[in-house]
């Protein structure tokens, strides 16, 4: 990859990130916008969980990550601390891969 390509990618990535904070900025206090923006994480985070767990190369897959997610879900349900949720999922996934 050339330096130009790396700089272009950096610039484009920053432009996407800056849309909300820099471009919208102080205008982001109006009622309807607040409600829409407030709901975005509710729509995005569960989708992020699903994609990080079940997405393969353009297909749905069921692998050791699903075991980790199941352990994480159990820990969340039991109101375990964040560290336990993450650590439990990591350990369960590693163990599944080691024996599978």
């Amino acid at each position: 990859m050339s330096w130009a390509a790396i700089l272009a990618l950096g610039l484009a990535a920053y432009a996407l990130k800056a849309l909300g904070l820099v471009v919208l900025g102080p205008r982001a206090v109006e009622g309807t916008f607040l409600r829409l923006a407030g709901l975005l994480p509710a729509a995005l985070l569960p989708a992020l969980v699903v994609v990080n767990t079940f997405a393969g190369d353009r297909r749905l897959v069921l692998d050791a990550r699903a075991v980790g997610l199941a352990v994480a879900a159990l820990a969340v349900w039991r109101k375990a601390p964040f560290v336990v949720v993450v650590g439990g999922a990591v350990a369960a996934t590693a163990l599944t891969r080691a024996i599978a």
Partner: protein
Amino acid sequence: MADAPPADPEAPLPPEVRRNATVLGVAVGVFGLSFGVLATTAGLTVGQTCVMSLLVFTGASQFAAVGVVATGGSLATALGSALLLAARNAAYGVAMAPTFARAPLGRRVVAAQLVIDESTAMATAQEGRRAREEAFWLTGVAVFVFWNAGTLLGAVAGDAIGHPEVWGLDAAFPAGYLALAMPHLRTRAGRVAGACGVAIALVLIPLAPAGVPIVAAALGIFPAVLFVPREPAS
């Protein structure tokens, strides 16, 4: 939860957030090592690899870009796949905009570089504007430091730890996001948005290029806004 009291904008940050941000940072750091190794193997110099992590600073996009280059794909394909994966950051920026609406321009310009999965998830899980902004900075800076340190180490020292997947570290992220999604699912509108987002992502995983299923999931907010009556403090 219609009777939930409105969040106090000045509510303090829960003390465990600092540790939680570090946990995510360390997991990201190990993938940073992996990225450093992959990028240099794909032909980038150590300098290019490190500048990429500093400037682009969005892991999935960087892996996609150097992955395409490593397998002999064209530059256009590399940049295209990287940008599709980075597109979700625009939605994160919109989600974070109210938290930073009253911040000075300089602070918003710097914060924008830290708008990624981890910082947005940790920030929006907090109650109140002040705690959100503090959680955003803590997580964003932790991830930035670990990602870039990992990249440098991986690029210079090479493959010392093998694949992070062997240690199950790829499972850290969905687990963390699951925990951080929970506060958003307390309201009915949040649950509708979440269910629609998941459905959109599942349908698109086999149909669309990587990155698209997550950005498209943002459309899940519209059924929630249109069909769920507004709740106080939602």
